[in-house]
């Protein structure tokens, strides 16, 4: 990629750029959702797309998440590549039936007669005082569904490449956007001054078309003491915590939860013998439980300590107690110490 021009972008701009690039190349790509048209989305991810690509290619929908995903399925089955936005993942549940029973199973049910190349984008995670209805991380409710893919970037570079890959995939993909990372990396300390993507290497986004293959984790740092498996906002919390503790951590940003890069996971855990899984979502039946089970299956005889999980508590996401709920550096520290104490 030596000759490709790069631009410093926020994650919002990178997502917009991915949409713009695919819309420019393929008239089958349509973008719609609540407030995404003229206004450009409550997080501005679709700003300017209606003006550039036309009213009929980037438009507002009624406030009906089931309706939004329902029309997207019909369009996808009829040869288009819709990219539907659900304004907050917390509002995706009215669409759950359309996603779980329909989008995910259309190919199977019709034995390949109909397919559903659909992308659903939705912001996830906390950190913005959004309370119960603007903070949830419901990924595990979707990774449990056969026929659906679920991905989640942690930086602008990945966001663009992964979104293009999602749009071009011939199966339905749920594309989760950690909203706390939209404007900059976040290490879990709400009192530190906000960081921006400007000047960050992962904020340098190549122009034009590129994609990141689904099911491939990103190595955040190479280390030998402990493996940290994480994704979304927690990638940055993990990195900062390991650095503070002076640990040589092998950190994997999973990026794609389903399909999962089990090879990369296995390789790393076999090397370090210790593993901490970190996600923002609630603990019980969270995606960490799945990862932990797979590690137990593939790496049991290499483990030096039980696998630890750092997660949100098993409560709804509170408003005022946001930072007591959020799995920040302290919770990460305790878990890392625990797995390292075996040393």
């Amino acid at each position, binding site marked *: 990629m030596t000759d490709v021009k790069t631009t410093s972008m926020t994650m919002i701009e990178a997502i917009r750029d991915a949409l713009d690039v695919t819309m420019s190349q393929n008239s089958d790509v349509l973008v719609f959702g*609540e407030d995404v048209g003229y206004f450009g989305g409550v997080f501005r991810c679709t700003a300017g797309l209606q003006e550039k*690509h036309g009213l009929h290619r980037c*438009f507002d929908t009624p406030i*009906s998440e089931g309706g939004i995903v329902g029309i997207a399925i019909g369009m996808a089955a009829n040869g288009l590549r819709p990219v539907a936005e659900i304004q907050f993942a917390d509002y995706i549940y009215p669409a759950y039936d359309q996603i779980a029973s329909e989008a995910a199973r259309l190919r199977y049910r019709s034995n390949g007669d109909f397919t559903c190349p659909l992308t659903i984008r939705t912001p996830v995670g906390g950190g913005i005082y*959004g*309370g*119960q*209805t603007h903070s949830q991380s419901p990924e595990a409710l979707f990774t449990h569904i056969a026929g659906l893919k679920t991905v989640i970037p942690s930086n602008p570079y990945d966001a663009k490449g992964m979104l293009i890959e999602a749009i071009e995939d011939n199966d339905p993909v749920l594309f989760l956007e950690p909203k706390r990372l939209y404007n900059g990396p976040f290490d879990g300390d709400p009192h530190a001054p906000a960081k921006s993507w400007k000047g960050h290497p992962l904020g340098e986004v190549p122009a034009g078309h590129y994609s990141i293959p689904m099911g491939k984790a990103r190595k955040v740092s190479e280390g030998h003491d402990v493996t940290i498996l994480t994704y979304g906002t927690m990638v940055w919390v993990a990195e900062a915590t390991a650095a503070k503790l002076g640990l040589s951590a092998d950190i994997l940003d999973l990026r794609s939860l389903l399909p999962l890069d089990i090879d990369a996971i296995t390789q790393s855990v076999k090397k370090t013998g210790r593993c901490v899984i970190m996600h923002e979502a609630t603990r*019980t039946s969270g995606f960490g439980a799945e990862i932990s089970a797979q590690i137990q299956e593939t790496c049991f005889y290499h483990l030096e300590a039980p696998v630890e999980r750092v997660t949100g508590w*098993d409560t709804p996401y509170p408003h005022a107690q946001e930072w007591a709920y959020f799995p920040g550096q302290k919770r990460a520290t305790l878990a890392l110490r625990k797995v390292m104490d075996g040393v």
Partner: protein
Amino acid sequence: MAKAPKPVTNRSRLHVPEPQFRPGDTPDYSHISVPADHTPARPDPLCEHHETAEHALKLIRVLRFNGEAIGDWNPKLSNDALLGAMNDMMMTRAMDERMFNMQRQGKMSFYMKSTGEEAVSVGHAMALKNSDMIFPTYRQQGILINRGASIKEMMCQCLSNSGDPLDGKSIPVLYSFKKHGFFSISGNLGTQLIQGVGWAMACAYKNEDGIASVFTGEGATAEGDFHYALNFASTYRAPCIINVVNNQWAISSFQGIAAGEGETFAARGSGYGLATLRVDGNDILAVYAATKWAAERARKGGGATLIEHFTYRQSGHSTSDDPSKYRPKDEARHWPFGDPVERLKVHLIKLGIWSEEQHDALAKSCKVEIRDIYKSAEAMGDLSEKTNVNDYTMFEQVYERPPEHLEAQRRMFSEELDE
């Protein structure tokens, strides 16, 4: 992708509705006819639902712009009731103003005003019993004020401080006041509609006199829950009122996105066999009269009524919104139905029980009263630095009794605090 990319074309027969005016345009509402005479007639509240079919398409109005109140919907309220209505609307407006400004100063995370829609909430509340359960959205604070809820408690909720009755669990404005017949507000649009129908069915089952009154914005009528509500309310003749507050906007999308450009929101009820009324929502007497009618129908076993309150959202959607990005800045001023507070003021002056001076004095005293209440609320903390609620409360009320795994997490949390 297997196929080669297709070239982009810009031709399409797909229809996407657009509002008439965008930023930079001069709004012109001359096409919205303001009915001069106050049709349609007031039928018996126990009439057949189809006798209200035309009411779904017209507009019930009582107050003329010159301050006269006329027609058979005129509720002929006492002077005291009218002055009380003015006070409640002005208090609601003053509170919204104050809270908005305090949010701007970082005292709370978020706020939502109801400016321009005070007649809907106050007029509606006045026509119900205080025990009738409201299933509100986030724009009916006027109901709480009319019912005498503690403004300080409301403010403490928004400030998420030690006086917050919800212990910081919810974002600002998502109140819960069972003692004032005000159901816990959900952030998930539309969900309350069908729950309110269920509440009303329970009232009927228990042979109680109470009714439920459920609210939605026009935007959220697109959710399935709205259609569930109309259907169930019709099937079981649930003693309830289903209110659609059509304030023209749903964040940035105009009402044509929610409904298409055909019928009114009230007309949605006709197909389900509900009584349907469409009312000038900036006319507090019309709101009161329509609500009285629907409440009587519900209480006497006539079933549910769908009321569309035709009004205008004067402010941004919330403190996170900038409406000048998607609609003309001065659109509110051009709104042909005026402002609900002004409309009532002109009426009171016409009646000879009010004056400009008294009006200004009331505006001032509301402002002062709200300021003083706010100060006492803020003395209990705000969200600008750190939370003033006990963090451990986040583990409470998840279940009646916390299961062991949650107790374990509570212990993990205290370890974390020691760290």
